[in-house]
């Protein structure tokens, strides 16, 4: 057991207490709390960066594994959390409940995500996921006086609990099949023997539980409501972090454990992917609330991720890694603009965005680029991600799925452009200039830079991802029954 390996998680879990305590003790002023939170993240980042590459390994009797793949995503989680903290800073005067608790919950959720990134055991996965969702349940309902926030929290909790129920029941069935919840032993059992129906059912239950996390059709219905009702920083965290955690869990399970059963889940995932893409992008068209619209859009993006997952190839996993990175940058840009703008423009209704370009060219420009990147337009980040995913899909021979995916690009462009249209062609109700805080401004500039860099210079990042998954067992095609006869 090497404690070095869980350094990042350790820092983050310490910081849950630090932020809570700092708030109670009123050490920094309320409006300085975000600096404390950022300090914790920086510490965690430093620890992550200092983890020597050769220290990779497994801990807690193989329950927790630190590998390149996990480290890559841990880095992304820290970035997400940092941006969410910047958002929270913008948002804090709209949060009536104590801020310290909010940051604490943010850190517990982050901890859950970090755990999930390194998970090697179904039970740990369950606990990690629950840690994320519980924090998010509470954060969703954090605007206590806003009925919509409370309603969103309620819905999220109920559907989330159902998903947890299915997940844990599935874990139970898988445990029954292999006698262990440990990934390697499960994998061994799968490779070596006949897989009973009960284990297959368990697998699909787990799939459903994770489908809830990543907002795949038909486990997605909570998404728009929660996105609309929850505080915007939470929505950002939810849409990027929570989804990413779900995807990582899926990768770990599908590729680390169930890859030999590719034939079992490939088509299922492909169908789910198609349904998810179509549903998300279609339903977004008629929306009038920007957060709700982004909720549907995030469903659409889940569809793309599923497409890459269903390919069953290392290219698919690389594509997932790249896509998530691109999605992270673009989506956080969009949400940061929403947070920064919503206070002045009054609400999340699309009409409030009329003429934004005249009120704040910077915000409008960032939102423009973020939305176009989400749509997948070159030379922005989203394009590269989508292209990799479509390529992975095509390489897996799923041309019908690629077709649907490609057509969805055009479909999604429509509703993203509807927002652009309002910003650039609409006339503002109130032509006053929107002022943007320097911190937000700097973050936006960094994110937009990221959008461009990811859209143009794909190779360094792609290589990073490829080397991160290089040493995974799933990239070594070594299964005995995978050999051609």
């Amino acid at each position, binding site marked *: 057991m090497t404690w070095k390996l869980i350094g990042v998680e350790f820092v983050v879990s310490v910081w849950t207490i630090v932020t809570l305590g700092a708030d109670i003790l009123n050490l920094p002023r309320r409006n300085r709390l975000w600096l404390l939170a950022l300090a914790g993240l920086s510490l965690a980042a430093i620890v992550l960066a200092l983890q020597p590459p050769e220290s990779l390994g497994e801990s807690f009797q193989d329950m927790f594994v630190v590998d390149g793949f996990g480290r890559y995503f841990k880095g992304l989680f820290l970035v997400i959390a940092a941006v969410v903290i910047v958002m929270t800073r913008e948002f804090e005067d709209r949060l009536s409940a104590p801020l310290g608790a909010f940051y604490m919950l943010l850190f517990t959720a982050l901890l859950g995500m970090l755990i999930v990134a390194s998970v090697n055991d179904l039970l740990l996965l369950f606990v990690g996921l629950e*840690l994320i969702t519980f924090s998010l*349940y509470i954060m969703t309902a954090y605007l206590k006086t806003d009925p919509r926030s409370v309603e969103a929290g309620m819905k999220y909790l109920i559907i989330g609990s159902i998903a947890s129920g299915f997940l844990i029941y599935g874990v139970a069935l898988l445990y029954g099949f292999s006698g262990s919840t440990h990934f390697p032993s499960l994998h061994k059992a799968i490779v070596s023997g006949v897989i009973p129906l009960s284990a297959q059912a368990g697998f699909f239950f787990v799939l459903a539980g994770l489908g809830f996390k990543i907002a795949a059709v038909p486990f997605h219905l909570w998404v728009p409501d929660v996105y609309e009702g929850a505080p915007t920083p939470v929505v950002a965290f939810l849409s990027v972090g929570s989804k990413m955690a779900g995807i990582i869990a899926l990768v770990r399970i599908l590729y680390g454990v169930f890859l030999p059963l590719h034939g079992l889940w490939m088509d299922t995932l492909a169908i789910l992917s198609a349904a998810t893409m179509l549903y998300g992008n279609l339903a977004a068209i008629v929306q009038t609330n920007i957060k709700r619209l982004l909720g549907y859009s995030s469903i659409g993006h889940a569809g793309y991720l599923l497409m890459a997952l269903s390919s069953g190839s290392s290219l698919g996993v690389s594509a997932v890694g790249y896509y998530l990175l691109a999605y992270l940058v673009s989506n956080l840009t969009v949400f940061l603009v929403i947070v920064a703008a919503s206070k002045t423009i009054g609400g999340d209704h699309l009409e409030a965005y009329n003429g934004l370009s005249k009120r704040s060219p910077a915000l409008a420009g960032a939102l423009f680029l973020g939305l176009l990147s989400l749509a997948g337009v070159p030379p922005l980040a989203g394009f590269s991600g989508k292209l990799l995913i479509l390529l992975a899909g095509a390489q897996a021979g799923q041309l019908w799925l690629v077709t649907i995916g490609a057509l969805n690009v055009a479909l999604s462009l429509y509703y993203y452009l509807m927002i652009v249209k309002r910003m650039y062609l609409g006339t503002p109700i109130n032509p006053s200039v929107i002022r943007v805080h320097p911190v937000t401004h700097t973050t936006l500039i960094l994110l937009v830079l990221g959008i461009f860099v990811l859209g143009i210079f794909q190779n360094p990042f792609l290589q990073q991802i490829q080397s991160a998954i290089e040493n995974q067992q799933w990239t070594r095609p070594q299964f005995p029954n995978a050999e051609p006869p």
Partner: protein
Amino acid sequence: MGELLLFYLIAALMVAAALSVVGSRLPIYSVLSLLVVMGCQAVFFVMLHAYFVAAIQLLLYAGAVLVLFLFVIMLLQLSPEAVAYPRLLSRPAIGITAAFGLFLILRTVFFRSLAQEPPLADLSRPHSTVEAIAHALMTKYLLPFELTSLLILAALIGAVTLAKQQASDSRLKR
């Protein structure tokens, strides 16, 4: 043979109680029926040689969770739900059908995979002693164990923050 008989008896009681949880109009009955379910489950745990877990089940579930439920039900003074018989193609009807379908599928799945299930192992050595469990929790399962503590902490702080009255909020706000 006696064991089998006991099993069927407890199983019948458990299913009946569960039905009552799902179906009774008065919330308080549901909670109390759940208590029965918990009890039956504890019996099953004992039958499966999981003595410590059985105790935890009774203590934690029956002792803490259900009390909490009762407390909230009292607090909110719930009225009995209006009886509405599910009509054909209404959501409850479809729900019941789907749930029954789920049961049937699971049943079929279990029967079909009967041959591949592990047989109940011979428990010659006592394996589920408190000590063994404690050891496992403190070694192999230390990480999830610590995480659950954070989970509980988060849930508690969250619940407190959420459920607190507005007046107290203003005091916290600085």
